[in-house]
């Protein structure tokens, strides 16, 4: 029983972290058909901004988190201005923006490297203590990650479902031209979506670095997993991304316990292959018919 509790606790924590990161990616892909390869760099930037605000400036954790969200949101906006906006309308948009965001991400990572060095740093935002269920100690840090992720998912769901902005984001994702004909300024929506995604990446980066450590390239692994989750869920499907993230987090924790850490990532990749063969448009994606 203790083992099950341990696996569920670890799996939910992993899943919650993946969900926050995946929702940002999925939102961007759903709206712009854009694979944002700078997302991992934004995760790292968010972690470092929080660390710097708390350690170097001596400010409280809340300010650190807010600073990370604001800075990464603004960098998300910059990604729109520098990479997506100039390529919008180009027939090679998807390829062009994929390459451009790789370049943008490399610049951000190298700026972090110059400023903070290559050595790992511990994230300052840590919640001490744990709770005990049976014989299992669950760190409060993990519970905080779960609570924050849950809060963010609810907030995102409310934003997308209930607000005027959310309706405009969904409308633009579902039919860009029809959204324009309703008076939606799609460029503005794209910019907002990238800023939102940047803010979510910052929180995800703080979560990841609070469990592991800060490194300039720390965003690579979570971004790769977020892409895997996006593909399993169906690119652009936000709800599917959250469900898949939690499921894959639990699967990864189970695989780590039963097979060993070295097999968990291989298992995720195997799962992607199976899903792509079975449902090429993802578990929650919709079949698309392209007229040639």
């Amino acid at each position, binding site marked *: 029983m203790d083992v099950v509790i341990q696996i569920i606790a670890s799996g939910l924590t992993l899943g919650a972290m993946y969900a926050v990161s995946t929702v940002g990616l999925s939102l961007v892909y759903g709206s712009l058909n854009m694979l944002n390869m700078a997302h991992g760099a934004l995760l790292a930037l968010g972690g470092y901004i929080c660390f710097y605000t708390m350690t170097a400036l001596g400010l409280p954790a809340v300010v650190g988190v807010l600073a990370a969200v604001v800075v990464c949101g603004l960098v998300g906006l910059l990604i729109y201005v520098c990479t997506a906006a100039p390529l919008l309308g180009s027939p090679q948009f998807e390829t062009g923006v994929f390459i451009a965001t790789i370049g943008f991400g490399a610049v951000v990572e190298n700026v972090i490297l110059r400023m903070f060095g290559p050595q790992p740093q511990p994230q300052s935002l840590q919640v001490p203590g744990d709770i005990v269920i049976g014989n299992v100690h669950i760190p409060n840090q993990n519970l905080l990650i779960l609570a924050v992720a849950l809060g963010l998912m609810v907030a995102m769901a409310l934003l997308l479902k209930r607000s*005027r902005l959310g*309706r*405009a984001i*969904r*409308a633009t994702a*579902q*039919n860009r*031209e*029809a*959204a*324009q*004909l*309703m*008076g*939606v*300024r*799609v460029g503005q929506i794209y910019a907002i979506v990238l800023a939102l995604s940047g803010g979510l990446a910052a929180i995800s980066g703080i979560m990841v670095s609070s469990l592991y450590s800060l490194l300039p390239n720390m965003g690579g692994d979570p971004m790769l997993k977020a892409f895997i989750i996006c593909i399993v869920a169906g690119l652009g499907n936000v709800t599917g991304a959250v469900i898949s993230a939690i499921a894959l987090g639990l699967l990864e924790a189970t695989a780590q316990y039963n097979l060993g850490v070295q097999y968990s990532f291989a298992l995720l990749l195997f799962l992607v292959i199976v899903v792509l063969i079975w449902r090429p448009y993802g578990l929650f994606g919709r079949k698309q018919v392209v007229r040639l």
Partner: protein
Amino acid sequence: MADALLKIDGISAGYHGQDVLRGLSLTVAEGNLVAIVGPNGHGKSTLLRAISGLLKLTGGSIQLGERRLDRLRPDEIVAAGVVQVPQGDLLFPEMTVLENLQMGAYLPAASARMAERLEEVYTLLPKLRERQHQVASTLSGGERRMVGIGRGLMADARLLLLDEPSLGLAPIIIDQIYEVITTLKHSGRTILLVEESAARVADKADHIHLLDHGEFVWSGAGSELMARPEILATYLGS
């Protein structure tokens, strides 16, 4: 003769450097229903796309009242009062009927009168009230077209552009759609409509323009066009 609301002066526009519209001029008077008829692929939808700002002009100008439209973005053109009900469905497939209608009143001016507008749309198209919580992708073709028209009516439009509202629908549904369009005309709406079939709009439009290869080749009243079988046979094959 009422004042001209829409003035199109010698516009040209097209795709990939090839003009589809060649120096078109047109006026639509306030409260009138003007129809553009013509065969497929001769520029009818392109004209509406150009008016809505989805396609840049290569020449000429478009004015709504005193305001130049051809330098504005699509969202600014909607805010100026030109709303298009596009060809086919172009609904938001994963949204409900109600959400689709709410998107029609996206801009702040229309949003402020959302409840009132919604009631007007439900009165005109009662089926939409029954279907308001249904996801758009699950509707029939006729219902989807009704949602498209209802969505167009949610905005405070000074000019309504209707792109082939009968396309792909069964005759009985087409009759229902045209009943709605006739009601809109009688309520004083200004409408620019494009259709493939002249017979369908001949008795409803105040003025008809026949579009062929991006140029108007005939203009006049619907009854005059129907009395010219040689023109119908030459340009519309009927």
